[in-house]
């Protein structure tokens, strides 16, 4: 009982409560949209973190998994009317299988190969999707047929249900990260990151461990892609397979804090606020200026805070928890 009543227990519960109530406090649907996008990036950043942070393998092509999920699902939904609730899993699994050869080929090598291979993968998929336009509709993209309010087809006429689904996904991803960190795989990934030779001498198959992290990461990213397709109704190759998206996903995790449970979640919130404010400030008038600022942000983070903002956040959170009333203090 003490655990629940202590700040460690109730602060996360309060935060969760706030998150649940939050969309209803928003003045108009546009802000709810921002919340949905934040939640999606939490999922994407946390998923990237599994292989990029814990696994130490930097992917610059996670859009490959995102786009795969989006396209697999949308093609099936359009062709056979299958419910996205089902194709979500399929999209994730296809993305997972896509990640396996990449892992097998790259993880036995030491060097920048994985980063380069992932860029290549995303770009190749983008070009292939553009090329086979009879199937994929090429550059025009695919649309999800609008069916109004159809929950079994993952379509709603208000933004709120989308937000709650995204919120569930985001919380689930955070919990999955925590579970993984405490599992044998989580420990092994840390050992590999510290000293791969020593880890191997202790019986750790480093390639296999990284491949598992990548598979999980790809699966989650693919599922997010399916959700995104359903939420926005339209997907284009340049958007869902683009290098820009891959960089953004990685940036979320880096700014927040790689290799931590909540870093990417914080990074997603910061990034989305950042994106929205720069859009307000520049009002789309100066093409390129916004992204120049992101690039500058990335360089600045690398130079001055390579561990991301998570250490600050952790300290702030610790301070708050320490200064909140707890059952022990009341009795003192």
């Amino acid at each position: 009982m003490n655990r629940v009543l202590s700040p460690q227990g109730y602060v996360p519960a309060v935060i969760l409560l706030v998150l649940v109530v939050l969309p209803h406090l928003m003045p108009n649907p546009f802000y709810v949209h921002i919340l949905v996008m934040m939640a999606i990036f939490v999922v994407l950043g946390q998923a990237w973190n599994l292989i990029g942070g814990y696994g130490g393998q930097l992917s610059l092509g996670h859009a490959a998994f995102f786009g795969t999920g989006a396209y697999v699902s949308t093609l099936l939904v359009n062709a056979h009317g299958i419910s996205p609730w089902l194709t979500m899993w399929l999209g994730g699994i296809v993305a997972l299988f896509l990640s396996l050869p990449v892992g097998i080929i790259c993880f036995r090598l030491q060097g920048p190969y994985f980063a380069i291979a992932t860029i290549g993968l995303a770009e190749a998929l983008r070009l292939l999707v553009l090329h086979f336009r009879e199937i994929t509709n090429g550059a025009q993209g695919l649309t999800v047929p609008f069916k109004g309010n159809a929950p079994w087809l993952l379509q709603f006429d208000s933004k709120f249900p989308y937000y709650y689904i995204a919120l569930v996904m985001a919380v689930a991803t955070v919990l999955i990260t925590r579970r993984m960190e405490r599992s044998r795989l989580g420990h092994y990934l840390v050992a590999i990151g510290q000293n791969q030779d020593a880890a191997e001498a202790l019986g750790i198959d480093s390639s296999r461990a990284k491949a598992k992290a990548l598979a999980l990461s790809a699966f989650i990213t693919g599922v997010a892609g399916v959700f995104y397709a359903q939420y926005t109704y339209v997907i284009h190759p340049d958007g869902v397979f683009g290098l820009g998206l891959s960089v953004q996903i990685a940036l979320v995790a880096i700014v927040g804090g790689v290799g931590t449970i909540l870093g990417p979640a914080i990074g997603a919130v910061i990034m989305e606020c950042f994106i929205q404010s720069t859009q307000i400030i520049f009002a789309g008038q100066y093409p390129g200026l916004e992204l120049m600022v992101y690039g500058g942000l990335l360089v600045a983070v690398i130079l001055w805070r390579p561990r991301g903002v998570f250490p600050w956040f952790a300290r702030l959170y610790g301070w708050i928890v320490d200064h909140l009333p707890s059952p022990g203090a009341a009795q003192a």
Partner: protein
Amino acid sequence: MNESVLLEVEGLAKRFGGVQAVVGLSFYVRTGEILGVIGPNGSGKTTTFNLITGFYPPDRGLVRFAGEEITGLRPYGVCSRGICRTFQIAKPFRELTVFRNVLMGTLLRHPNPAAASARAEEVLRLVGLEGRAHTLAGSLTTIDQRRLEVARALGTEPRLLLLDETMAGLTPTEVEEAIRLIARLRDQGLTVVVVEHVMRAVMSLSDRVVVLDQGMKIAEGKPKEISSDPRVIQAYLGAEYRHA
């Protein structure tokens, strides 16, 4: 060879660029014994460990462990079959605690982190590091770092332990402690191969000794025989005479 042979190395050879590090090396290790491996610097001792444990594939030759051929297996495969090694230059997981370092070893046989933790505590007590369980590995003293190397390896519950110059740079008292620890491990059923330069330690610990020079085995036998073998003496003093 009889059933009491745990490890067999036959005709091992390895070349690095222009250097033949190991040539036609053959020896065996009996279950439950402590085998000492000595030789001047550059004689191929660490390379031999690397070949046995899969860090490099041999150019020729084979390695047999408990009757099974393990030549060319990757290090994690060798470890899971029961051979674990320490490194000459210690490779601790510097940013992790001593406890977590050992945990990485015990997780091999105990995938459940809770069970692995319990085992890790036992291992720490065995080597005398339980007081430092929460110290960061990177800030340990030399002797404790060596203890940690051994502890981590022990965590994997090996049948054969390969110790690479564990006693280098230790004080005489610390060497005594190390000797006692290794002897205790052997008494508990572990087979140990010890590569060392500290002659006193090797000679008092080992049941048998193998001597390497320039990648070849030049002598093999009981410590007493080895220390009076003229070929061995010449190998160690050899450099002087070779340039004369």
